[in-house]
């Protein structure tokens, strides 16, 4: 065998290895994407019976809940085809309102302090280290914290307020980090310009820097909210899993939330409940889609201004 054929043989072998490698990479990416699509397809195909009119009624018993409006407004039921997600939907809305009102001031406040005012010392470093670690704490641990602090110590009981505050603790690190990124993205020239014109540090930050970082902060808040909306584990400790079949009236009412209600429905063995659970999941994923679209919209709309 001459040297030349050896080299071309090696080349061919390399080419095969190359394409095999690339093929493996493709497969890996495809599996991730396919799984997501399978998941969405499975949920959609199972859950739509509760959300669309069934034209074959009459053959079997009539399905009671067959459109989104009924599903959103009806109470839970012992029968899968009559179970609506009303109380859970209301509970989620309550939670989101509480989370926004508490998280936004504290989250952006902490971010503004850390990014604009905090001295570069050990204490600041320690706060940052704490934030990194808090972001990695499993959500059930926040549930235990909420149980001990809000339910027992503060005496809020197993209420929507305790639930909202617990979720706030959970997403606070996320929101702070996102808000800091938004502040970081504001060009230094804006700060220097304001200071050069005689503004105090405080004025420069609150009249120039913060307003231009607001879109980024709102985006961070929306993304934090979309994490909170799907959280299940911490709310279980707030009593959200007990049978709550009424609309929460005050912040101290008992409550349930969409993911909790879905978890409940998943637990029933009968096949019909799968459809109801899927309908709940469709609602949950729909809400997430809306929130992420809002975040992307804000990001694209205001990004160019800076």
């Amino acid at each position, binding site marked *: 065998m001459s040297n030349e054929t050896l080299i071309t043989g090696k080349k061919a072998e390399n080419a095969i290895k190359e394409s095999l490698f690339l093929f493996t990479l493709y497969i890996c*990416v495809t599996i991730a994407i396919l799984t*997501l699509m399978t*998941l969405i397809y499975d949920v959609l195909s199972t859950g739509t019976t509760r959300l669309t009119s069934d034209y074959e009624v009459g053959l079997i018993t009539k399905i009671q809940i067959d459109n989104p409006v009924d599903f959103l407004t009806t109470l839970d039921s012992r029968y899968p085809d009559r179970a609506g997600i009303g109380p859970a939907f209301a509970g989620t809305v309550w939670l989101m309102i509480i989370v926004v009102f508490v998280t936004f001031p504290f989250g952006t406040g902490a971010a503004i302090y850390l990014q604009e005012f905090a001295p570069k010392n050990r204490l600041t470093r320690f706060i940052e280290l704490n934030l990194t670690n808090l972001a990695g704490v*499993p959500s059930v*641990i926040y549930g235990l*914290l909420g149980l001990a602090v809000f339910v027992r110590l503060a005496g809020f009981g197993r209420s929507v307020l305790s639930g909202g505050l617990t979720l706030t603790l959970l997403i606070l690190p996320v929101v702070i980090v996102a808000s800091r990124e938004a502040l970081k993205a504001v060009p230094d020239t804006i700060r220097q310009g304001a200071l050069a014109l005689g503004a105090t540090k405080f004025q420069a930050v609150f009249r120039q820097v913060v307003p231009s970082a607001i879109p980024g902060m709102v985006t961070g808040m929306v993304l934090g909210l979309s994490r909170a909306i799907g959280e299940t*584990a911490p709310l279980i400790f707030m009593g959200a899993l007990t049978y709550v079949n009424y609309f929460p009236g005050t912040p101290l009412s008992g409550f349930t939330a969409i993911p909790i209600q879905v978890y409940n429905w998943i637990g029933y063995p009968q096949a019909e409940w799968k459809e109801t659970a899927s309908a709940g999941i469709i609602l949950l*994923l729909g809400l997430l889609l809306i929130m*992420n679209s809002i975040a992307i919209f804000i990001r694209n709309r205001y990004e160019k201004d800076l």
Partner: protein
Amino acid sequence: MENKKDLRSQLTKTITRPVEKIVKFFITASAFAAILISISIIFTLLTEAINFFQDPAVTFKGYFTATRWTPTFQNPEYGVIVLISSTLYIAVIACLISFPLGLFSAIYLSEFATKRTRKVIKPVLEVLAGVPTVVFGYFALNWITPNIIQRFIPGTGVFNALSAGIAVGIMIIPTVASISDDALNAVPNSLRNGSLALGATRRITSLKIMFPAALSGIIASFILGFSRAIGETMIVTIAGGQYPELNLDPRSAMYTITSSIVNVSLGDTPHGTTAYNALFALGITLFIMTFILNIGSDYIARKYRKEYE
């Protein structure tokens, strides 16, 4: 010199309005809340866990040596080893899924994908990361178990460690992929170009140059993924079942730390009972495990960032 300093302090000393003081106090306090939250997590978990170990029915030794976890039975046993081993077992299954898939996706994204494909695949991974865990739990129980597990391994129960582990693995693919992708992107381009210029193929460059160069970041992503798998709650609660005895059969149900926290809290657990305190003993066990992993991941990632700065 003295005069200049005086003048300067006079100039900068504008009147601070009370509003400014209040706002400044508020934002400082918000930042310090991070420390407060950390302290209260550790404090609440510790105090209730100490109560747990003071209960005569519980011994420290029993907690670590008993081989059953049955806190609500007549003769309760509190063998946390059962839960820890199940937790690690499912986490390892999850890692077997997510490490290769996540890493290879990251290599594809950073070394092979065009900008356009990147723009499509990245958001898909973000969506996957945003899917609530209760949805993954549903998917594991109602799709993975009947369509994959029971089809290929007949006789597997409805609740099994395998499908829970696979679902957890899918859930952490985006975590592994995005951090590994960042790590690969942080490697200076000169290394990649140098390798290609010397005639190495893209496969060789990826595997022998980029992978080792980004290794610490990739390891950090693995550790973080593992930590997230350990702390994952809803998937294992829904699809993993509750088998309170020591067992290592992936086809059978298992009982992780997180799912037993959920299950103990589902039962009526009034404040002060042993079962209530057990929640917090489990909580601190879980907290310590994830805390060590998170610190480790952070440490490795930071050390690595310095290498190329």
